[in-house]
């Protein structure tokens, strides 16, 4: 019995399939340099069941910065904030929206 359980719990081929699906709906947080020491934070790939407008509004208030929603043809709606808000966005996504950290990828330096 025990050996059977062990076999079923570990499947060496499951991983690749998992990561494939994860790549598709991963959230990417990026940071881009603008002129001087100014930066832009972009958040790409928030699942569509969340109300982006509402998230944007609360985050703008929380971070004290402006931001908007960019509609990209390929990548869907992308949130954009002024300044480097990556860590704060990550905290918000993990705590308020309860998105697992493995689904979020932080880019940049």
């Amino acid at each position, binding site marked *: 019995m025990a050996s059977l359980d062990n076999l079923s719990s570990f499947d060496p081929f499951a991983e690749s399939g998992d990561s494939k699906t994860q790549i598709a709906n991963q959230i990417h947080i990026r940071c881009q340099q603008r002129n001087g020491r100014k930066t832009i934070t972009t958040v*790409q790939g928030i699942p569509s069941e969340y109300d982006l407008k509402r998230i944007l509004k609360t985050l703008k208030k929380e971070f004290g910065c402006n931001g908007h929603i960019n509609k*990209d043809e390929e990548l869907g709606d992308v949130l954009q904030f002024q300044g480097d808000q990556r860590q704060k966005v990550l905290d918000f996504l993990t705590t308020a929206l309860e998105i697992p950290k493995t689904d979020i990828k932080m880019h940049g330096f």
Partner: protein
Amino acid sequence: MSETLFDPTLKKKKKSTKSKPAFVTEDEPSSGAKSTPASEMDDLSLGDGNEFEFKKKKKKSKSAAASAVDDFEAALEQAGVPNSTAPTNVADDVETVKGLEIEIGYQAPEGAEEVSYDKMLDRFFQILRENNPEMASDRQGVKYKIPPPIVGREGNKKTLFSNIKTISNKMHRPTEHVIHYLFAELGTSGSVDGSQRLVIKGKFQQKAIEGVLRRYIMEYVTCKTCKSVNTRLLKENRLYFLECNSCGSRRSVQSIKAGYQAVTRDARKKAHTTT
């Protein structure tokens, strides 16, 4: 004081002359207390609303789970009486089992096996280290070393990454691949100058570049199975695979995607001037 505290009704009807200051001081915190719960309530309700509309399903599932837990607890309480009787039975069983063990003498070899697992593991690693130190080296904390990136400033807006060639050679990766990853992660562009140095647009600290390189190594150089860096990157019909030279494992790696790029004012200006 105890009387004044005890009779709030008196205070409301008429304010007594002598204990007036005391009442004033009492009034203020009470009013404050009254106002703060209200504001807190407002905040709470707002927060609830927000969360609710972010994702509606969450709340329901939570409450359902909570009710399930309650049910479970209730069931536990109901089952409390049989539980109290159960341990005695178990103890009896254990006693009988012990008696069996002593009689048969079955437990002794198994126990010996359990103890020897650690020893066997130690012995395994000892032998492994003696015979092929490469495989066990990372477990010993001998880390993969690459020379630190030499990063300087070129002009006011550009960063010069001078030893990218040596670093990518050390990692056995094509320089273009490393450059591609750097640009995608940093969200910029740049070029390679005459003496194989990389010019990156934007200001970047050495530490930042180092962090990106570390992530590159994690993703495109180390073998996930044995943590070896002795690997090679293969491209097979548009898919990248990482194959390990020391353990032979193979995994697919993501192709580098730049993802979304915000249109900066510079880009807009450039587009405007060129057209």
